[in-house]
Structure formats: C-alpha cells, structure tokens
C-alpha cells in the first residue's frame, strides 16, 4: 500500500493546482512590480536614463519575458475572479472545477489576442 495518503477532494486535484498556480503567478507579478516601479522612476532622472533602460525591454528575449508576465497576470486575474465566485456565489464551491476550465479557456483566448499584437511588435524588425 502506498505510504502517502490517498487522494482527497482537494489534494492533487483542480483545487490544489489552481492554488499553486495562483501563488506562483502572484509572486512573479509582485517581483516584477518592484522592478517596474524602479525602472519607471528613471523618468525622474533623465529622458536618456529612462530610454536606455526601457530599451532593454525591447529586445526579443525580454519580449518573451513580457509575454510570460502577461500570461501570469491574465491567469491570476481570471482565477482571482473564480476565487471570489467560490467565496461569494452560492453555487461557487459546487462549480469550482468547471470554473477552472473556464478560467483556462478565457486565459488561452485572451493571451492569444495579446500575443497577436505583441509578438509582431517584438520581432517585427523595428
């Protein structure tokens, strides 16, 4: 017999994985936010200083990083709405799994729309 406890309603299933995803994306967004306020603060130093640093965001590698960041933000935003519905909507707990699949579908659609605009800007040979 397995030494680990058998699966439960939560463990290893949609509930726990969405919680893991929410934590990881939240931490990623938080650390980007710290850096983003610092880089934006350079507008107070000089136009040259700001343009030099923001120029780093325009290379292809950073462009892919931005795509990853936006992917994290969209998931965190939509899954956050799902958490609110679980907490406040009478039928939220019953449909939490179905709502996760809706979150993931909306995430894929929204991210695709973003990438259609963003990737040509990054790789468009400006």
């Amino acid at each position, binding site marked *: *017999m397995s030494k680990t406890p058998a699966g439960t309603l939560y463990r290893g299933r949609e509930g726990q994985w969405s919680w893991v995803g929410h934590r990881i994306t939240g*931490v990623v967004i938080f650390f980007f936010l710290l850096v983003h306020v610092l880089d934006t603060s350079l507008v107070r130093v000089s*136009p040259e200083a700001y343009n030099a640093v923001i120029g780093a965001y325009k290379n292809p590698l950073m462009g892919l990083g931005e795509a990853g960041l936006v992917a994290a933000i969209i998931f965190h*935003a939509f899954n956050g709405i799902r958490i609110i519905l679980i907490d*406040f909507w009478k039928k939220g707990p019953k449909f939490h799994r179905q709502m996760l699949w809706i979150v993931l579908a909306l995430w894929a659609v929204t991210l695709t729309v973003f990438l259609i605009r963003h990737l040509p800007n990054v790789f468009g040979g400006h």
Partner: protein
Amino acid sequence: MAQTIQPPRSYDNTKTGIKYNRTGGSGSNFEMIGWLFMRLSGIVLLVLIFVHLYVNLMVGDGIQAVDFGFVAGKWADPFWQVWDLAMLWLAMLHGTNGVRTIINDYADKDGTRFWLKMILYAATVVILVLGTLVIFTFNPCPPGAAAELLPSFCSAS
C-alpha cells in the same frame, strides 16, 4: 496503514452546541479586512491593469513605442496620473499582503518570519513613496533635455 490527523493548533471553541477548532484571535478584524481587501482590490486591479496593458502594449507599436516621450505624454494628463497612482497603491498593498501570507505559511521560525516580513514592509514603503513622488513631481519637459526625446507639446510654448 492508519493515519492519525492532528487537530489544528488551536483551542476548542463551542458555539450553540457546535465545536469549532479555531483560534480565539486577538480580537482584531485585521485578517478579515485583509481577506476582503484582496477580493475588492483584485477586481479593481483587473480593470486597471488590463487597460494599462492594452494602452501600453497593444495599441500602435506597443512596447516599441514606449519611451520618455510616451510616459511624459500620459502623465501630462491628470487622468493617467490618478490611474497609475491607484494601480501603484492597490497593486503594492495586494502584493504585499499576498507575500505576507506566503511568508506566514512557509517560514516556521518566529525570527525568520519576523525579519522576512520586516524586509517586505520596508520594500513596500520604499516603492510606494518613490512611485508616488515620481508620479507627482515628474516634469514632462525637463530643462536642458534634447528636444527630440521630449513629447511634442514641450516645444509648442
């Protein structure tokens, strides 16, 4: 193999005949207010950040168009100053409370937990003060800067 699951680390609390294993707490509503704040600020942040991403990364040339002139053009308008100020404060407080929760969950030692949170709060204060000052003391037409780096309205005087 029989597993014994320990009761939560709290005292027994009985209310109208039902036993709840919950801490008595400090008598403060802080954690409940924090819980509510995460949900309310989350909804507002969804709108603030989605519009921020749309305007800055999806319209026109997106990231390629972001430079000093772009930021100066936005912050010349009080609408975007207030927008970005709201985004700064709500996002920092939402993020700080989230990281505080994670520290409380994973840092077992009292000292570690205390110092990690002190570092977190110090970073939050620095970022909030810096960001707020930058939004409100920003000059879109700094004297002595090259005209081609500035928004077009700087030379229109």
